């Protein structure tokens, strides 16, 4: 279990992480979701004792990371797959890690087999593809058979096969009762990987909830319905007091109606009672990205569009969810970045 309490990190004038509190449960995959620059990596570095929090603290199974003896036996982390000397072989890299925590050196070959790198373990890690590096990073994280695992954007830049492999791997780790905390800026990926979500924007907590509840809550339910007698269908729906819009013929199919705030059951029964033939009756989910933008609202660090972030969006509490979700998507001249920590050449 990971517990963060009032975690804050300030770089100069920028507050990268702002009073962040959350809990990550064991036996589940918890997604750490936020747009680029929201403070995910910084938070993970603070969890692991690499960065010193400006305020607050974070504990892993009740202990600070820096107080753990032989920490690789408790916590495995993959923050950056490139944290390997390019001229060192994968085996040598894992060997020094194993020795440092008094793990048997036989463990090196075990984890290499686990991630499928045995055949290339003697080659210099600098020649590895991104997918191979990622596997090596995961091997390093699993070396001490830890109960807590942290992964920072593990699927970034991977091919579909690699993404699927990592996704299944994480589920397996969680099923074994481990705490799995994985960050991403892709909600669609998290929807497939994580059971729980910790959502942050601009360093502040936006939501901590289960993935399904998050998607449910942030996208309104609507029903797409289509039949040969569209005009009568519209009359019946309007007569029952429901709101509907015309969906013209387009990528989704022929012209149809979108009924708001109704279930497929209700719309189906309505049409049946009126004796109308239906060609299509489908629940429509708001896209995950839409839901995400709705939730994070003004909490995107680098935003586009003419509207400057409102004062409320910058300084408001966790409850502030500004109501112009479309704004963040509008193409236009880029706003001056509030901070450029990622660019300062770490």
């Amino acid at each position, binding site marked *: 279990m990971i517990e963060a309490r009032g975690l804050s990190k300030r770089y100069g004038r920028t507050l990268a992480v702002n009073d962040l509190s959350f809990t990550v449960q064991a036996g589940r995959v918890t997604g750490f979701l936020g747009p680029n620059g929201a403070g995910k990596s910084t938070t993970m*570095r603070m969890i*692991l*004792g*690499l*960065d*010193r929090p400006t305020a607050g603290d974070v504990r892993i199974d009740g202990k600070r*990371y*820096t*107080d*753990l*003896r*032989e*920490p*690789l036996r408790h916590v495995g*982390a993959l*923050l*950056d797959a*490139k*944290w*390997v*000397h*390019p*001229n*060192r*072989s994968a085996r*040598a*890299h894992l*060997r*020094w*890690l194993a*020795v*440092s*925590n*008094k793990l048997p050196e036989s463990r090196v070959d075990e984890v290499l087999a686990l991630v499928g790198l045995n055949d290339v373990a003697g080659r210099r890690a600098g020649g590895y593809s991104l997918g191979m590096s990622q596997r090596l990073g995961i091997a*390093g994280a699993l070396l001490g058979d830890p109960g807590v695992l942290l992964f920072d954007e593990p699927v970034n830049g991977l091919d579909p096969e690699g993404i699927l492999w990592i996704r299944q791997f994480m589920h397996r780790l969680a099923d074994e009762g481990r705490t799995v905390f994985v960050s991403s800026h892709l909600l669609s990926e998290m929807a497939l990987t994580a059971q729980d979500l910790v959502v942050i924007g601009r360093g502040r907590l936006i939501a901590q909830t289960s993935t399904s509840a998050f998607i449910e809550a942030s996208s309104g339910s609507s029903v797409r319905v289509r039949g040969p007698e569209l005009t009568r269908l519209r009359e019946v729906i309007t007569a029952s007091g429901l709101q509907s819009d015309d969906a013209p013929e387009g990528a989704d199919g022929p012209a149809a109606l979108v009924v708001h705030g109704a279930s497929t059951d209700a719309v189906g029964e309505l049409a049946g009672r009126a004796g109308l033939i239906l060609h299509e009756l489908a629940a429509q989910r708001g896209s995950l990205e839409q839901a995400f933008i709705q939730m994070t609202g003004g909490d995107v660090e680098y935003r586009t569009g003419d509207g400057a972030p409102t004062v409320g969006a910058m300084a408001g509490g966790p409850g502030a969810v500004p109501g112009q979700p479309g704004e963040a998507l509008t193409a236009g001249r880029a706003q001056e970045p509030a901070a450029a920590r990622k660019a300062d050449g770490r």
Partner: protein
Amino acid sequence: MTTLTLLKVERIKLFSTRSPWWCMGAAVFITVGFSALLAGTMQAKDLGDLTPATTQFSYNFGFLIMMVMAILAITTEYRFGTIRATFLAVPTRADALVAKAAVVALLAGLIGEAAGVGSWALSKAIRPDAPLSLDSAQDYRVVVGVGLVYMIATVVALSVGLLIRHSAGAITALLIWVMVAENLLPAIPRVGDAIQKWLPFTVGNNFLYAGQHVGDNNDATPAHMPLGAWGSLLYFALVAVVLLGVAVALAKRRDA
């Protein structure tokens, strides 16, 4: 975590990349090679000048190479992010960093001995007639002491690397210190001479050359150094330890 474990970790890290091997080989080869060149090309009438102290004139070559190796040992960890992997495996940063300094210094000491003794032995093999027998404590010190100077110098270099954390920056800073600052500061009128007597590498060099004669113009070490040979070594070591202490304290406070 025990000291032995950490030393082993740093040893694996150092020897599992190629550059330390090249540095070590180059340090011995160039140092011994230049001594051999000197011994081999010396005219018979000057042979009296080929003393044990003269055979060590080239120790600076290997010593600079080993300092560069020491800097790279730490700055490449920052460059490639392995320092973070190190701190994740060993959260007690000071222990990990001091272990690294120990391994690098020990290795530099061995290379220094190989270079020092090798230079002398090869010179003696080339010119058996030269006065190269080790007759006094001074003779032994200048030949066998080279390893100690290498050891301390690499601790200084590693500390500079740990402070600056960039290979190019740290190497430049160190070269400016050793090659430029310690040679130019003494040129300042009035205070220059007083400053020179306390410059770390000048004092470290005095450990080897105090009371020695190298050829006719004995300028291997400034005249009237305030500390004796062993006092000089102690002072040099103290500078290295203080510098390492500052660098480690800073590394503990900084975000990795």
